[in-house]
């Protein structure tokens, strides 16, 4: 049996971004022994990059705001494909999570009377985003990190051990969720309860097993499968893949959000985000003719809510009661497609984007006060002074709406007892397109719920704890060590050099960017699936040199398994859905089709034992099926005008 470091906890949280830390705090507050595992140093998670704010209908900026309005905006943004129960819980609980964060010490910008200030954002009817300048995500992570430090000091005062009930394992990667020996066997190698996780310490390369009956996945997204992305290096779809391998299905994987405004220049920083707050605070989009083109791209479903002229749009910032919103603040999918169209029509900026201008809209001092990070970012990385000249921006892969299929209330993954998922790795909440600001609120609301229900689940087990088998540990270790023994070519065939994992990764990113990107076509996606199949075969020969200590090439070789699995889910689901909706745009099926609204595409591992080796390379690793969503509850439907519902729901669903 493989020699591994062993630990035992009640709850293990994989990922230390906003969702993971909030889940861990909750599980610890329930009195359970909790471990958090993160790939980076503690406090460096991708959440720190969130700039805009936390959407919550506290009503500080506009007293008309309430959870029903937030719910409606969220459903519209997601084109009604959202799991309505998640959207409901999210809208109802977000204000409490923001206030809670404030009582834990978070800094917020304030209104004149000292309450938390709220700012405008795309798709939100009222100014709703609680924020700290343009560094809200950083403050959110820091506050949760500080809360964890304070809980650890409480534990130390109580029993002399800082890590008695909450321990952070930093710079560690999980490669497998382990299953209970008994139930795993009884169900023919499928299903079975969660028994813990297997992973390695990045610094030493040593393996570890944490035995725990409840595992919360909070690993974030998949953006590193795309070439142009705003996502950080951690975003290799680990949690998505861990769930699949453990037997849990993913849903909505065809919906990938391309944020409309990423930097396009210089090339090395292409994809880095330009916050939506620039537009919320008055920034406008222009093409090379100087035209404010967004007025030409207001879709029918939103015609009544958005201004038709520049004059009307400009009046909105000061007097939102009597003016409609500027079209620059349409949901992200609409703006990203519009920019894409302008560039392709030859009306783009010199470096292949469009112009985002705030310099002619606000005084320089005001820009520096409201958007300090953006001012620095452009000054330092692009040598552009945004108070004096426009920025060049274009779409960048930003967020995946799809993820683990979960129970809305408990965040429990379907079909795998003991597995939970929260934040970007969970699917359903945002439907086909997420609104800006709804991510930070999502991860607080569902992070807390996942931590709570994981703790309850673990506590109820009492002595009936699942057990990790030696066999599973051996298999996981062998899988992780494989890149060291690869000879190249066919596994075991001598003489052929091993594949370079960095080269494979770059080919994968290019494939996804070109063939399953912002605008999709059937032929290109079939081609993508073909290329993914060949990359998958080649990745089995991905080899690395050296030892296990801090070996970045080895880490990437392991991450490739995850990115390939997740990319196949995206491509397969995108090929199947023959309509355009939110973060899924088909050139060959440009219209939204009401008949597709209630259909979720479900991705599962084709080889149900969780083994990847047995699968025929040409067939792929993912099995796709369709599933109907539960009908929207009547009182929630009643929040909308019937005329609006007719744009989304079929006559049959509306009973007409």
């Amino acid at each position: 049996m493989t020699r591994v470091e062993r630990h035992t906890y009640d709850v293990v949280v994989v990922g230390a971004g906003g969702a993971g830390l909030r889940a861990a705090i909750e599980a610890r507050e329930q009195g359970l022994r909790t471990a958090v595992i993160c790939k980076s140093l503690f406090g460096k998670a991708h959440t720190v990059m969130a700039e805009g704010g936390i959407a919550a209908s506290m009503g500080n900026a506009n007293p008309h705001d309430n959870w029903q309005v937030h719910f409606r905006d969220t459903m519209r943004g997601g084109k009604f494909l959202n799991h309505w129960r998640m959207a409901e819980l999210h809208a109802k609980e977000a204000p409490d999570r923001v206030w809670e964060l404030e009582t834990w010490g978070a800094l917020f910008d304030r209104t004149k009377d000292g309450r938390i200030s709220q700012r405008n954002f795309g798709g939100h009817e009222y100014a709703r985003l609680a924020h700290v300048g343009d560094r809200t995500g950083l403050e959110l992570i820091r506050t949760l990190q500080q809360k964890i430090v304070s809980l650890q000091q409480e534990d130390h005062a109580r029993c002399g051990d800082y890590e008695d009930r909450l321990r952070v394992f930093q710079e560690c990667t999980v490669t497998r969720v382990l299953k209970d020996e008994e139930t795993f066997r009884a169900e023919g190698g499928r299903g079975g309860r969660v028994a813990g996780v297997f992973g390695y310490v990045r610094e030493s390369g040593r393996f570890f097993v944490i035995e725990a009956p409840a595992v919360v996945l909070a690993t974030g997204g998949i953006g590193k499968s795309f070439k142009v992305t705003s996502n950080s290096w951690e975003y290799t779809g680990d949690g998505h893949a861990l769930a699949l391998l453990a037997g849990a299905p993913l849903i909505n994987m065809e919906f990938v959000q391309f944020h409309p405004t990423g930097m396009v220049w210089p090339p090395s920083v292409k994809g880095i985000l330009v916050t939506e707050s620039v537009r919320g605070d008055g920034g406008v989009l222009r093409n090379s003719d100087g035209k404010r083109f967004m007025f030409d791209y207001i879709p029918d479903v939103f015609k009544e809510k958005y201004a038709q002229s520049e004059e009307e749009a400009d009046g909105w910032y000061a007097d939102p009661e009597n003016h409609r919103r500027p079209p620059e603040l349409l949901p992200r999918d609409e703006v990203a497609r519009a920019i894409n169209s302008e560039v392709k029509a030859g009306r783009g900026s010199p470096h292949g984007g469009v112009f985002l201008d705030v310099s002619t809209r606000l005084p320089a001092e005001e820009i520096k006060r409201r958007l300090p990070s953006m001012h620095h970012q452009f000054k330092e990385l692009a040598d552009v002074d945004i108070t004096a000249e426009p920025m060049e921006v274009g779409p960048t892969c930003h967020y995946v709406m799809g993820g683990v299929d979960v129970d809305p209330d408990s965040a429990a993954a379907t079909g795998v007892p003991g597995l939970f998922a929260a934040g970007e790795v969970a699917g359903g909440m945002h439907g086909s397109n997420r609104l800006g600001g709804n991510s930070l609120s999502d991860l607080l609301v569902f992070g807390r719920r996942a931590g709570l229900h994981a703790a309850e689940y673990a506590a109820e087990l009492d002595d009936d704890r699942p057990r990790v088998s030696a066999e599973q540990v051996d298999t996981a270790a062998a899988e992780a060590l494989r890149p060291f023994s690869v000879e190249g070519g066919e596994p075991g065939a001598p003489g052929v050099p091993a594949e370079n994992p960095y080269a494979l990764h770059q080919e994968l990113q290019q494939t996804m960017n070109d063939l399953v990107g912002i605008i999709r076509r059937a032929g290109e996606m079939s081609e993508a699936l073909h290329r993914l199949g060949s990359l998958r075969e080649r990745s089995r020969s991905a080899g690395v040199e050296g030892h296990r200590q801090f070996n970045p090439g080895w880490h990437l070789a392991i991450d490739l398994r995850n990115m390939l699995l997740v990319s196949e889910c995206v491509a397969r689901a995108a090929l199947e859905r023959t309509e355009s909706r939110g973060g899924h745009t088909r050139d060959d099926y440009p219209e939204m089709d009401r008949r597709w609204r209630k259909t979720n595409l479900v991705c599962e591992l084709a080889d149900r034992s969780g083994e990847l080796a047995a699968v025929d390379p040409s067939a792929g690793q993912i099995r796709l099926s369709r599933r109907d969503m539960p009908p929207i509850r009547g009182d929630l439907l009643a929040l909308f005008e019937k005329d609006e519902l007719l744009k989304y729901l079929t006559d049959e669903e509306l009973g007409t």
Partner: protein
Amino acid sequence: MSTPTLDKHSAALDAAENTAFEQITITLRVRRFNPEVSDEVTWVDYQLEMDPKERVLDALHKVKWEIDGSLTFRRSCAHGICGSDAMRINGRNRLACKTLLKDINPEKPITVEPIKGMTVLKDLVVDMDPFFQAFRDVMPFLITKGNEPTRERLQSAEDRARFDDTTKCILCAACTSSCPVFWNDGQYFGPAAIVNAHRFIFDSRDEGAEQRLEVLNDKEGVWRCRTTFNCTDACPRGIEVTKAIQEVKRALITRRF
């Protein structure tokens, strides 16, 4: 809504991509250390074709992806928010992701080494545990008495502005590892921990200032600071670190904050 119909390889995009690059040859001189192979440190030169508008981080990636996959360094967000890639570049602490090649004279060799005063684990990766221990020692969390409010606590714009600067810290350790006092005495809390104490001492909502000031009144506390301003120069977030330390010193004398 209009639907894009042009082919994805539009002339405009191709033209934009083709004009994007201007290549020069640079020498990246990296301090390599791998305790598994040798106890000795070696400096290795890499000749790279780069665009001067690219960053030191891009040069490191190029080495790792194309020349030597074992080159080890930390990075995460890659644009100066997470604070993972502080390193000593041409003798000065900076974030590799925010340092453009053209701004550090690419005509001469560019030296890259780990931040000083911390134990090097491999190549550019240092042991950050003592750094985070100092952070934890100043009790970096809101301390309040009485009942929690049901909604938010009120805070005036003025009160909030009082500590805005020190909330910008990204815990990258550029300041602490640029401090000569810290180089000579690893027990010194260092500027970053004091900045994070400042963030709470001057927060109008906090009631734990006395406890924190006592921690910093220690012989390894603020009084070790010799006001050399290295930390202020090194901070990639532009925090006035030395000023913050001076404010904490003044608070210790006057007990007003």
